[in-house]
C-alpha cells in the first residue's frame, strides 16, 4: 500500500512516456548540468543560464517584465510542452498583503500562468503548503484572484495530499510530500526574496519547505542541509525569484512596510543554485559563503554558484 516512490522514479516514468519529445531539454536539463558539473573541469562553461530582469521605467508593468525575462530565456515554449501539467510553487505562506514582500507578487504569478497556458499546458496549478490558514493566505496574498482570473487550479493543502515518500536526502529520508509536485510534468519555483533568522535568506531552494508537510518546524535543526535535500528532491525546471520588492528585516513573516525595499528585479534560471547565488549577491550583497545552503547546493551538485560558468542574459524594461 504505502509504497514509497521517489521523485526520481516518477520522473523516470514520465521520461519513458514522453521520451523523444522536445521535453528532454527542459526535463533533463538539471540532470545534465549535474552530470556536466561532475565530469567537466571547474572552469568549463555549463549548460545553465540565468536571466536578470530589471524594471527601470517608473510604473513599468510587472507582467511585461515577466514575459520579457522568459523571452530572453528562449520563451516558455522551450520548457513547457503541449499537454503538460505545470505546477507553480509561489510563496503564499503568510496571510499578508502582497505589498509587504512576504509573498510572491500576484502579477508575476498571473504572467507565468498565462505564459504556460499560451505554451499549451493542459493544466496549471498553484500549490503551496501554507503556514497561515490556507483560505486566508489565498484571499489576502492575491492568489485567489489570480486563480479566478486565469482559471488556474489553486490546490488547498490538506493531509490527504501529503504522501509519505523517501526524499533520499543526506539528512532527510521519509517525509510527507505535497502530491501536486509529485504528479507534475513541470515545476516552476517562484519564491520571493526575504531575509530569514536562521537560513540568512529565503530564496528559491528554501521555498521547498512549502512543498512538504509533517514536522516542518523540526527542519530548522539542520536547516541548510534540509533545504538542499528538499531542493534536490523537487528539482524545479525553472526558478523565478520575485524581487520586484524584497523584505530586508523581520523576515520571513514581515508585516511592516518600512522593511520592504523596492528592487524591481526578476531572476530566472534553470539552475536553482545559480538563481539563489545571483539574488543573494545582487539584492542582499551576500556571497555563497554567507549563505551556507547555497554553498551546500553547489557542493552536492545541485547547481553552480559560479555564475561566470553560466550563460547570462540581462533584460530591462
Amino acid at each position: 500500500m504505502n509504497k514509497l516512490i521517489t521523485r526520481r522514479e516518477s520522473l523516470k516514468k514520465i521520461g519513458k512516456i514522453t521520451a523523444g519529445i522536445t521535453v528532454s531539454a527542459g526535463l533533463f536539463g538539471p540532470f545534465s548540468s549535474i552530470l556536466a558539473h561532475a565530469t567537466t573541469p571547474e572552469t568549463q562553461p555549463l549548460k545553465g543560464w540565468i536571466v536578470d530582469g530589471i524594471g527601470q521605467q517608473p510604473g513599468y508593468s510587472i507582467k511585461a517584465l515577466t514575459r520579457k525575462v522568459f523571452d530572453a530565456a528562449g520563451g516558455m515554449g522551450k520548457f513547457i510542452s503541449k499537454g503538460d501539467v505545470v505546477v507553480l510553487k509561489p510563496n503564499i505562506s503568510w496571510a499578508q498583503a502582497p505589498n509587504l514582500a512576504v509573498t510572491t507578487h500576484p502579477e508575476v504569478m498571473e504572467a507565468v500562468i498565462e505564459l504556460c497556458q499560451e505554451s499549451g499546458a493542459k493544466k496549471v496549478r498553484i500549490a503551496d503548503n501554507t503556514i497561515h490558514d490556507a483560505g486566508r493566505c489565498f484571499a489576502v496574498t492575491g492568489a485567489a484572484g489570480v486563480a479566478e482570473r486565469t482559471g488556474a487550479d489553486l490546490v488547498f493543502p490538506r493531509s490527504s495530499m501529503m504522501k509519505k515518500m523517501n526524499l533520499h536526502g543526506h539528512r532527510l529520508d521519509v517525509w510527507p510530500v505535497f502530491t501536486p509536485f509529485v504528479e507534475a510534468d513541470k515545476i516552476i519555483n517562484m519564491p520571493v526574496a526575504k531575509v530569514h533568522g536562521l537560513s540568512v535568506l529565503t530564496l528559491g531552494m528554501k521555498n521547498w519547505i512549502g512543498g512538504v508537510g509533517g514536522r516542518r518546524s523540526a527542519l530548522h535543526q539542520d536547516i541548510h542541509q534540509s533545504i538542499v535535500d528538499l531542493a534536490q528532491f523537487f528539482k524545479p525546471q525553472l526558478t523565478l525569484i520575485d524581487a520586484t520588492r524584497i523584505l530586508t528585516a523581520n523576515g520571513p513573516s514581515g508585516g511592516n512596510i518600512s522593511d520592504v525595499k523596492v528592487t524591481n528585479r526578476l531572476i530566472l534560471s534553470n539552475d536553482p543554485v545559480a538563481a539563489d547565488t545571483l539574488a543573494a549577491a545582487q539584492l542582499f550583497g551576500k556571497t555563497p559563503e554567507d549563505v551556507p545552503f547555497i554553498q551546500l547546493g553547489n557542493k552536492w551538485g545541485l547547481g553552480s554558484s559560479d555564475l561566470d560558468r553560466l550563460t547570462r542574459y540581462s533584460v530591462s524594461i
Partner: protein
Amino acid sequence: MKYRHLIWMRRISQAIFLVLFLVLLVMAQLPRDVVMDYSQSFSNSSAQSPDIRITQPITLFFQMDPLVWLSSVISARQWIAGFGWAIGILVAALFFGRFFCGFICPFGTLHHMAASIRPALKKKEMIDANRTSTSRRIKYFLLITILFAAAVGTNFAGLLDPISFLFRSLSLSVIPAIGVGLHDLFEFLAASDVKLLNYLAYGGEALAAPVFGYENKVVLTGWVIGGLFLIILFLNRIKPRFWCRTLCPLGALFGLCSRLMVLQLEKDSDKCTHCGRCTAACQGAATPEPGQVWQTDECLMCLNCTSQCPEDALDFRFKRPYIKERRFDVGRRALMGGMVAGVSFPLLGRLDGSADKSPSPTLIRPPGSLPESEFLDRCQRCGLCMKVCPTNVIQPSLTAAGMAGFWTPTLVMTLGYCEYSCTLCTSVCPTGAIAELSMKEKTGTPIRIGSAYIDRGRCLPWNGNAPCIVCEEHCPTSPKAIYFKKDVIRRPDGQTLPVQLPFVDLARCVGCGICENKCPVKGKPAIRTLSAGESRSLENQILL
C-alpha cells in the same frame, strides 16, 4: 379535518426555517471564495488589506431568540442592539402563544421529526405519553434559573437555549464528527495506488469541504456536546418532543407569554366521541381533548389536534383573552427552586476568583473580548466564535474559565493560534461579549490576548540540543517580539554548536500563540502562552 392546509403551511414553515438554520450554520466560516483586491495595497502603502467578513446573516437565529436577548440584556444591564426580531417574536407570543415552537424553531422541528417519523409508541401508549404531566414544570425551573443567574451576572442562557444548543451541537460535534469519518475515508482513498480512487478522494474532499473543511476539526469536550445532543434526540422515543415539553427554557418563556393569547382552542363536547386522536397527535401534551382544560402554555400551535379530529369537535378561534380562567401552574417549587439555583450558580461559580481576584492563567479569550466579569455577563456559549475560527484555536472551555465559564471560548494554542491579521471571530458574537475589531485596531493598538514565555529546560537552543528559531520565524509582530542572544554550546563530544537563544520581548508580544503552535518540541511546547498581559484586564499584567 378542515385544518389540513394549515398543517401543510406549518410543515413548509418548519422546513424553511430548518433549512435556513442549517445553511446559515454552514455559512458561519471563513468565506471560501474571497477574492481581495490587492492593487490598492501597492498604491497606498498605509492601506491594510480589508477585513474578511461573513456577509450572510449568520446571527439571525440568535437575534430572533427572545431568551438570548432577555438573559443577555438582564445580565449585561445594557441595551444590546440587533435583537429586533427577538422582541417582535416575544410580542407576537403574547397573542399567538408558542407559535415559534411549532412553526419556526429548528430544534423543535428536529424533535418533531424524531418523534413523528416511525414513532416508537403505539396508539394507546402515545395517548398516555401525551397527557399533560408535572414534569413540564422543569422547564420553568430552568427558565427562572437562567433569568435569576442573569440578574446576578452570569449568562447561562445558551447552555439550554434551543437555538444555541442546536448550533453548538451541530457545529461542534455532529459536523466535526462526520468530518472525521469522511476525512478518514478520503485519506484511505488518497493513499491508494489506484489513480481513480485518488481522484475520487480529491473530488469528494472538494465537495465536502464547504461543510466539513479540508482537515479534521478538534473540539475539546466535543463528545459531551454530541452525547447530550443524541440523548435528547433519543428521549423523543419515550415522550414525543421531550425537550420542548420538559426542558426548553425558551418554550417556557413563550408559555408565560401565552397569557394574553387571542387564539383559543374551542372544544365541542357534544361532538366529541373521546376517540383520543387529538391527544395522540398533540405535540405539546396540552390536553386538547374536550372535557378537560386546554393548557395554553403547553400548546405548540402545531394544529394537529384540529386536523386529526374526525368529528370537527375542535376549532381554533380568535377571541378576546380570558385571563381569569387560565391558571398558571408554574409550580411554587419550580419558582423557588429556580430562584435559589439561579442565584447560587453565578455566586458559587465565581468563588474561584477567576473573574476578578486571580485571573486564570490558561484562560485566553478571543481578541476583542470584554473584561472577564462583563464577558461572563454577555457570553451565552453558543459556539459561533468557535465555529468561524479558521485555525480551530477557539475551544469550549472545560475548566480554564471555572464553573461559571463552562463552555465559554478559550484559545488552546497547541490546536491552533490566533492569526495576526484575522478578526473574523470579533465580527460574529451575537451578544457582544467579543467586541468587533478591525485588523487595524487589532494590530495597531495592539490588542493583546496574553503573552508567551520560554521554557528554557525544553527549548532546543537553551538546552543545548540544536539550533532552532521557529518561534522567532513565525512571530507576526514587526519588529518581532522574539529576539536572540548568540551563544556557543560545547557538546559532550567536544564539538561546538553555535545557537541563537530566544528571548520574549513582552512589550511587543501580543499572545497570539503561533510560536507555541509551531514549536517543534512536541508534548509540551518549549514556548507557551498564558493570559497575563491581556489588554482587556487591568490586573492581569506583567509589565509596569
